[in-house]
């Protein structure tokens, strides 16, 4: 009896996996057929040549370093930029969410700056910081700043009033309320903001690495490969960019599911 149930579960899991794979596999087949029909590796390379690039991630490409090296460079930049953005956004969001005066004061600025895409800052970043890490960190920090800020604000505002009042009647100081009630209470929403913010930061880093004068990173690698008509490297680089983004999002989501289960179960 129990064994049949287990077997059925396993069967269901395999079936789900197969269904998940249907479209990607069809996509790859379509790609390969298209590549054969087009028969021009400078437009659409065959699967095999992209796979060959992916299979040698430690081999230097056109003298710009390997896939792994460039990926690590991009990751380092995104981590620094994201850390700066989040480190500014979270305290500001908590302050705005907690004290209406701060909100009133800061909200107009936030509203004005938020709609400007991070990439629209590129020329200004170059004018201020020249080409280099600072410019990129600036762009990435800007990109992650707003989603983290708005979610923090939202999370702080959604902290139940009685959670705060219970702490007050138990003798909490304002600092204790912030540290022990508001921050943990808002953390699930802040975390969501960090996930969104990191996604945007990752997009920003690739774009920022296409700025003139850059000489490393995945964004640079794929742009550089274009200049040498190495389309298989472009596509391999894009795949790596996608996989890293996906992996980070999955990791953050896993933490969310484990640590913040209470948010769903509380209702």
């Amino acid at each position, binding site marked *: 009896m129990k064994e049949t149930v287990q077997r059925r579960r396993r069967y269901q899991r395999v079936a789900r996996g197969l269904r998940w794979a249907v479209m990607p596999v069809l996509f790859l087949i379509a790609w390969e057929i298209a590549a054969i029909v087009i028969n021009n590796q400078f437009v659409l390379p065959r699967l095999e040549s992209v796979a060959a690039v992916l299979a040698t991630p430690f081999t230097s490409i056109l003298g710009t370093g390997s896939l792994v090296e460039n990926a690590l460079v991009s990751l380092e930049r995104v981590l620094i930029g994201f850390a700066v953005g989040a480190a500014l956004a979270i305290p500001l969001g908590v302050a705005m969410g907690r004290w209406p005066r701060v909100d009133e004061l800061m909200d107009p600025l936030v509203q004005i700056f938020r709609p400007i895409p991070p990439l629209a800052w590129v020329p200004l970043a170059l004018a201020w910081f020249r080409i280099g890490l600072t410019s990129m960190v600036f762009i990435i920090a800007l990109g992650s700043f707003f989603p983290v800020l708005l979610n923090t604000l939202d999370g702080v505002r959604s902290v139940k009033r009685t959670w705060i*009042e219970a702490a007050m*009647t*138990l*003798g*909490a100081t304002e600092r204790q309320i912030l540290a022990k009630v508001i921050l943990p209470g808002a953390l699930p929403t802040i975390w969501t903001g960090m996930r969104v913010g990191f996604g945007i930061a990752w997009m920003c880093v690739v774009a920022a690495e296409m700025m003139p004068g850059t000489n490393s990173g995945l964004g640079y690698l794929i742009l550089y490969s274009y200049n040498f008509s190495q389309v298989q490297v472009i596509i391999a680089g894009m795949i790596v960019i996608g996989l890293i983004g996906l992996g980070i999002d999955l990791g953050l989501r896993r933490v969310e599911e484990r640590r913040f289960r209470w948010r769903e179960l509380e209702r």
Partner: protein
Amino acid sequence: MKLQVDNVSKRFLTDTGEEVDALRGVSLDVREGEFICILGPSGCGKTTLLRIIAGLEQPTEGQVLVDGEPVDGPTPRLGMIFQDYSLYPWRRVIDNISFGLELAGVEKAARTATARKYLELVGLGEFADAFPYELSGGMRQRVAVARALATDPAVVLMDEPFGALDAQTRNAMQRELLEIWEKTKKTVLFVTHSVDEAVFLADRIVVLTTRPGRIHEVVDVPEPRPGNRTCMSCADLRRYVLGLIDDGRQGQ
């Protein structure tokens, strides 16, 4: 410990700019160790009165005195229990109960020991490591009671604490609350809109009128108590208090 409500009035401004008289001239002397129920229909300002006593809201006029000193904000001397339990879902039961002690800077071992004592008192000894969402409503409210007691307040304020529970659980919780009260000798102010609940629990029942909330009558519940729910005198008392509430609703 002596708690005095001295001529407290509260006026609110609504969103439409209207002024609402929530409470007018409420005075009450609470004796140490007494169990008082504040009873009234919804909208009579009973919760507002309790929140003012807790220091969570400021009265427009009048003041609340604890041992002669005015209450000007929340204090651990006045514990509060909310209808929605207000437990911290990210903390385990034991850490919820020890929260007040943690705020006061009590060392971890000591506060856990105290919390465990109160956890036993409310009969949830084996749920120390559970999370609040794993507990039923009645159990959650018991955790909230333990949390309020753990800091050893002089007065425990309860705002319709059993309002969200089903009838059976509610009856059981009322009995348990009386047992805990007998053991701890706390002064209790208990807000409710249920006449049954007030008659079952209270030494004295403070009946409020609606809009503005004023004390209509303070009814002494005769000894011996805690009584059972079915005695003749209870039925008479219930009928009497119900009559008072109807007066209060009509005679505005």
